[in-house]
């Protein structure tokens, strides 16, 4: 069964460093998303991406964050100059079309020290 794949599963980084989280969405899906879950809290929407551009972004998604689809398969989230409060689980998701079921990757647990 096709699935969304994220790498790495865990990442520890020092405050101020840049990190890139990677995702391979399901191959025939057209809409891509990043979400964040701080430990013990609910899952929060960060950004949606369609047709090679950002469709929507939340207040959390400030200039520190960027997304890219560098090739036909990968979808990346870059966090510049990480802060302690960026420590969270980051989920990638994709879906085939508007108003369809979304499928989530297994998440990347980011720890900023």
């Amino acid at each position, binding site marked *: 069964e096709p699935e969304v794949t994220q790498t790495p599963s865990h990442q520890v980084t020092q405050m101020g460093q840049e990190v890139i989280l990677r995702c391979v969405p399901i191959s025939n899906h057209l809409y891509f998303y990043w979400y964040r879950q701080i430990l013990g809290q609910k899952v929060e929407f960060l950004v949606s991406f369609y047709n090679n551009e950002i469709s929507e972004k939340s207040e959390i998604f400030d200039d520190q964050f960027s997304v890219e689809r560098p090739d036909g398969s990968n979808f990346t989230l870059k966090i510049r100059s990480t802060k302690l409060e960026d420590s969270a689980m980051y989920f990638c998701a994709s879906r085939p*079309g508007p*108003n369809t079921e979304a499928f*989530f990757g297994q998440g990347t647990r980011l720890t900023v020290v």
Partner: protein
Amino acid sequence: GIQVEQSPPDLILQEGANSTLRCNFSDSVNNLQWFHQNPWGQLINLFYIPSGTKQNGRLSATTVATERYSLLYISSSQTTDSGVYFCAVDSRGGGGADGLTFGKGTHLIIQP
């Protein structure tokens, strides 16, 4: 934006018991999904159910879109059902690419 309220926030049951989890939302929706977050943090799709009723084994879900709520039923609970159950929606008022808005979840503990 749309508000999603889940109840109860916590639920402790004995193995074999049945349970009902509720999700209320504040606006019309295009999409409603139920997820189970397992102890490793993975979000497992349970149901895509913007309206109607679906069943999958011991689990079933019903969404009454006109009254803006959804229910998740778990019958004959097993210890592996433990975890957090999230309801997530996207608003009918938004565009097709909108992200999901999640509730705070119901933390379910099934004791042997």
